[in-house]
C-alpha cells in the first residue's frame, strides 16, 4: 500500500502497471499519440457496408470472447444501442467482454445481468450512474472498473492504453457509405464528439442507425472512411431520455442564492470581460450561475468568446443573443441544442479530444476562463468527489469535471454545505475525482471558501463585499449542527480504479460492505 500525492491509499501492483498520481501537472508527462491509428483496409461486407442485423455485424466484425467493445453516451439515458448489442452478444454466447462506454446511465441496467452471467467481465467509462454503479460497488465485477475523465479516455485511446476492438456507434443519421451525423432523424442527439475518437481508433466500427439516408449524409460528423459496417434498426433509443438529470435552472431558493453569489465572485475575479469563455455543468445550480452571468454580460455589454462542453438550451440562447461568438460542442443536453448545432454555423461540433484531452497538442479546456461545477463532497483541501455518493456507492464519475477544472483560469464549485443531513464539506472526501489544487473556490450557502493558494482571489472577493470564509470554519459549523459523518463500512477489495486525466491513479473505490 502506498499513498499518492493527495494522501489517498493506493494498493501497489494494480493491473496495467498504473502510475500513481504525484500531483504534477498533466502537461509534464504528456504521452502523445501512439500512432495506433487504424490501418488501411476496411472490413467491408461483400454486399457493401450495410448489414441486416446486429448479430450479422458482430459476426462480420470478428468479435470474440475477451475483446473490448465501445459505446458513446450521446443518447444518455435514452440509449438503446448498448443494451441491444450486449443482448445480441449474450444470445451468441460471447463471454468475458470488456465494455468501454464513454458513460453508463440507469437505462443500461441490463448490463448488470450481463456481468452476472459472465458476458461482461470488465467495465471502463467516464461516468457510471444507476444500477450498474450500484452493482459495481457491491463487487459484482471480477476485476475493478476503470473510471476516467472525458479527456483522459481520449488520451488513453490514443496512447494505446485503451484498445477498442469493436466500436458500436449509435448514429441518428447514417448513409450506406458509413457517413454519420447526430443532428438528423428521430433520435437526433446533436454532437457525436465522443464517438469520433472511437471511430478513428477502433479496429472495427459498426454504426447502428434508425435513420438510413441515401449517400451522402449531410452534414458528416464521422466520415465513412472510419466506419466498417452500417446496421439499420427500428430505433436506437428515445431522444427524450437525452434530457436526463437536471438541465433546468434550479428553483431551490438556497441554490439560487449560491448561484448569485458564484456569479458575483466570477465578476469580482475580473475575468468577466470581452473575450470571456465559459463552461458550466448541466446541474440546476450551475445553470442558475449561467443565468446570472448572462444578465451581467448584458448589463456590461460584454461580448464573450466561447461557451464549451455539454450544451444546453441556455447556452444556445447566450449564443443567439450575441453573448458568445461560438459554442464548442462535445455533447448536447436538449433538443434546442441539437437544433442549434444543426442550423447555426457558429455552433461547432468538436471531438472529445479537442475538448479535453491532455495528450494532444491543445485542448479547448485550456482556453477556458471560468468553469462552474458541482460536487457531491468537498474536503478541506478542496478535493472534490463527484464519483461516489457519501455512502461509497458509485453514482457518477469525473466526466469533464477534472479536465475543465485543470484547464480553466477559475474553477468554481457550487454546492450546499449541507445536503439534508449530510455534510458536503468534510475532512476527507469518500473518493477524489478532482484534485483540490485545480479548484479555486467553493461557493456555499454559508459563504465562499477560497483555496489558500489564491490569496489574490480572496482579496478581490472581499473588496466586493463577498463573504469569504475559511473552509475549515464552514466544516466545523455544519458538523456542530449534524455531527461528523461516521466512517464508511468498506472492505479492502477495490471495485473501481479512478484515473486522473493523465492516466495516473488518483484514488480507488472499495467495495461497500
Amino acid at each position, binding site marked *: 500500500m502506498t499513498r499518492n500525492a493527495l494522501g489517498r491509499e493506493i494498493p501497489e501492483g494494480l493491473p496495467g502497471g498504473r502510475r500513481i498520481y504525484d500531483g504534477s501537472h498533466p502537461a509534464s508527462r504528456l504521452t502523445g499519440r501512439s500512432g495506433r491509428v487504424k490501418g488501411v483496409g476496411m472490413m467491408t461486407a461483400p454486399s457493401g457496408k450495410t448489414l441486416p442485423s446486429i448479430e450479422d455485424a458482430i459476426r462480420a466484425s470478428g468479435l470474440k470472447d475477451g475483446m473490448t467493445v465501445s459505446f458513446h453516451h450521446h443518447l444518455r439515458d435514452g440509449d438503446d444501442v448498448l443494451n441491444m448489442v450486449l443482448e445480441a452478444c449474450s444470445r451468441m454466447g460471447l463471454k468475458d467482454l470488456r465494455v468501454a462506454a464513454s458513460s453508463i446511465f440507469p437505462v443500461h441496467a441490463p448490463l448488470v445481468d450481463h456481468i452476472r452471467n459472465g458476458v461482461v467481465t470488465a467495465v471502463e467509462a467516464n461516468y457510471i450512474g444507476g444500477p450498474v454503479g450500484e452493482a459495481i460497488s457491491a463487487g459484482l465485477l471480477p476485476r475493478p472498473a476503470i473510471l476516467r475523465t472525458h479527456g483522459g479516455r481520449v488520451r488513453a485511446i490514443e496512447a494505446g492504453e485503451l484498445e477498442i476492438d469493436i466500436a458500436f456507434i449509435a448514429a441518428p443519421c447514417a448513409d450506406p457509405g458509413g457517413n454519420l451525423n447526430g443532428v438528423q432523424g428521430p433520435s437526433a442527439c446533436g454532437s457525436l464528439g465522443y464517438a469520433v475518437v472511437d471511430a478513428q481508433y477502433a479496429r472495427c466500427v459498426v454504426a447502428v442507425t434508425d435513420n438510413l439516408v441515401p449517400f451522402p449524409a449531410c452534414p458528416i460528423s464521422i466520415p465513412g472512411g472510419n466506419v466498417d459496417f452500417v446496421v439499420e434498426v427500428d430505433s436506437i433509443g428515445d431522444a427524450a431520455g437525452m434530457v436526463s438529470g437536471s438541465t433546468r435552472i434550479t428553483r431551490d*431558493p*438556497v441554490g*439560487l*442564492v449560491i448561484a*448569485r453569489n458564484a456569479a458575483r465572485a466570477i465578476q469580482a475575479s475580473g475575468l468577466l470581460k470581452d473575450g470571456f469563455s465559459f463552461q458550466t455543468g448541466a446541474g440546476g445550480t450551475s445553470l442558475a450561475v449561467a443565468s446570472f452571468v448572462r444578465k451581467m454580460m448584458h448589463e456590461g455589454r460584454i461580448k464573450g468568446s466561447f461557451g464549451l462542453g455539454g450544451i444546453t438550451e441556455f447556452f444556445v440562447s447566450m449564443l443567439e443573443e450575441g453573448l458568445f461568438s461560438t459554442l464548442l460542442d462535445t455533447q448536447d443536453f436538449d433538443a434546442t441544442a441539437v437544433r442549434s448545432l444543426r442550423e447555426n454555423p457558429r455552433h461547432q461540433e468538436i471531438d472529445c479530444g479537442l475538448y479535453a484531452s491532455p495528450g494532444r497538442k491543445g485542448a479547448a479546456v485550456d482556453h477556458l476562463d471560468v468553469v462552474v461545477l458541482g460536487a457531491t463532497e468537498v474536503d478541506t483541501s478542496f478535493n472534490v468527489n463527484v464519483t461516489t455518493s457519501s455512502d461509497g456507492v458509485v453514482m457518477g464519475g469525473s466526466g469533464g469535471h477534472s479536465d475543465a477544472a485543470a484547464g480553466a483560469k477559475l474553477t468554481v464549485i457550487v454546492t*450546499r454545505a*449541507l445536503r*439534508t443531513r449530510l455534510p458536503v464539506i468534510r475532512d476527507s472526501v469518500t473518493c477524489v475525482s478532482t484534485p483540490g489544487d485545480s479548484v479555486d473556490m467553493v461557493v456555499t*450557502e*454559508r*459563504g465562499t471558501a477560497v483555496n489558500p493558494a489564491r490569496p489574490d482571489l480572496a482579496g478581490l472577493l472581499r473588496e466586493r*463585499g463577498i*463573504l469569504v470564509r475559511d473552509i475549515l470554519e464552514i466544516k466545523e459549523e455544519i458538523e456542530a*449542527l449534524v455531527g461528523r459523518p461516521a466512517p464508511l463500512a468498506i472492505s479492502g477489495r477495490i471495485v473501481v480504479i479512478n484515473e486522473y486525466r493523465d492516466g495516473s491513479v488518483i484514488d480507488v473505490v472499495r467495495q461497500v460492505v
Partner: protein
Amino acid sequence: MTRAVTPSGKTHLRRSLLFVPGSSPAMMMAAPFLGADSIVLDLEDSVPASEKDSARVLVVKALDSIDFRGAEKVVRVNSAGSGLLKADVEAVASRADTILLPKADVESLGRLAALLACAQHAQVIALIETATGLEEAFACARAARVTGLFLGAEDLTLDMGMERTREGDEIFYARWRVVAAAAAARVASIDTPYTDMSDEEGLRRDLQVTRRLGFTGRACIHPLQVEIVHEALRPDQAAVEWARRVIRADEDARAKGTGAVTLDGRMIDAPIVARAHHVLDRAATYERREVRD
C-alpha cells in the same frame, strides 16, 4: 428609523423579514446566511395541516440550535381562530425574539398577550390582513408588546372581496392606513410581500411605493428578494447629501442667530431639518448594518 429591541437588548433593523417554512430544516439552517434582518420561521400558511405538530417541534429545535447570526428570530404562529395558537406560543415564546400573529385584531392580540405572560421579553408583530384588523390598526399598534404592524395584502383583499392586481391600486388605502397607524404608535411598519418571485423588476417598482409611503421594511418570500429590498430602502446618496446641506445651513443660521434659512431658494423650517436628521440617521444605521454583514 423604527427598530425592534430584543431581549438581549440588541437593536434590530427590520428592513427585510424573510419567510422560511417551519417544516423545512434545510431552509431554516441556511436562513441565517441569506442576509435578512429578520427571519420568520413559519408555522402558518407554508406548513400543511398534517405537518403542524412536527413543524412546531422543528422550529423549537431550530431556535435552540441554530446561530441566527444576529438576525431577529420571528415565529409566525397560527392565528387565534386556528385552535393552534396556545400550543404554538407555549412552544416558541421563550425562544423567539418576536411572535408574528396572523389575522391580528385587538381581541386576538389581547389573547396573545395573555399567553405571553411568562415570556417576559417577547415582542409581537401584528399581521394586519383582515378588514377588522385594518380598521383597528392604530389600536393594534398600541397593544401590549406590539413593536410592528405588517400588512398582509393577499388575505386582506380576500377578506374584503377585492380583486388583487399586479399594480396594487386596491391596497393603497390599506398601505397608507398601516403606515400611519404604525408611525403614530412609533412602531415598525412592514409592507406586504411581492408574490411574483420571478419578477425582480416588478418588485423594484413596487418598492418605490413602499419607500414613498414610509414603510420601514418589507416582507420577503424568496431569499433573492432580500437584497433588492435593502437596496430600495437605503437612503440614496443624493438624499444624504441634501440632508447634510440642510443641517449645515441650519447650524450656520443658528450660529449667526439669523431666523429664516433658505437653501436652493426654499425655506428650511423645523420639519425639514427633522426630516434631514431622519435621513442621516437611517443612512448611518444602514451603514452600520452593512459593515456587520
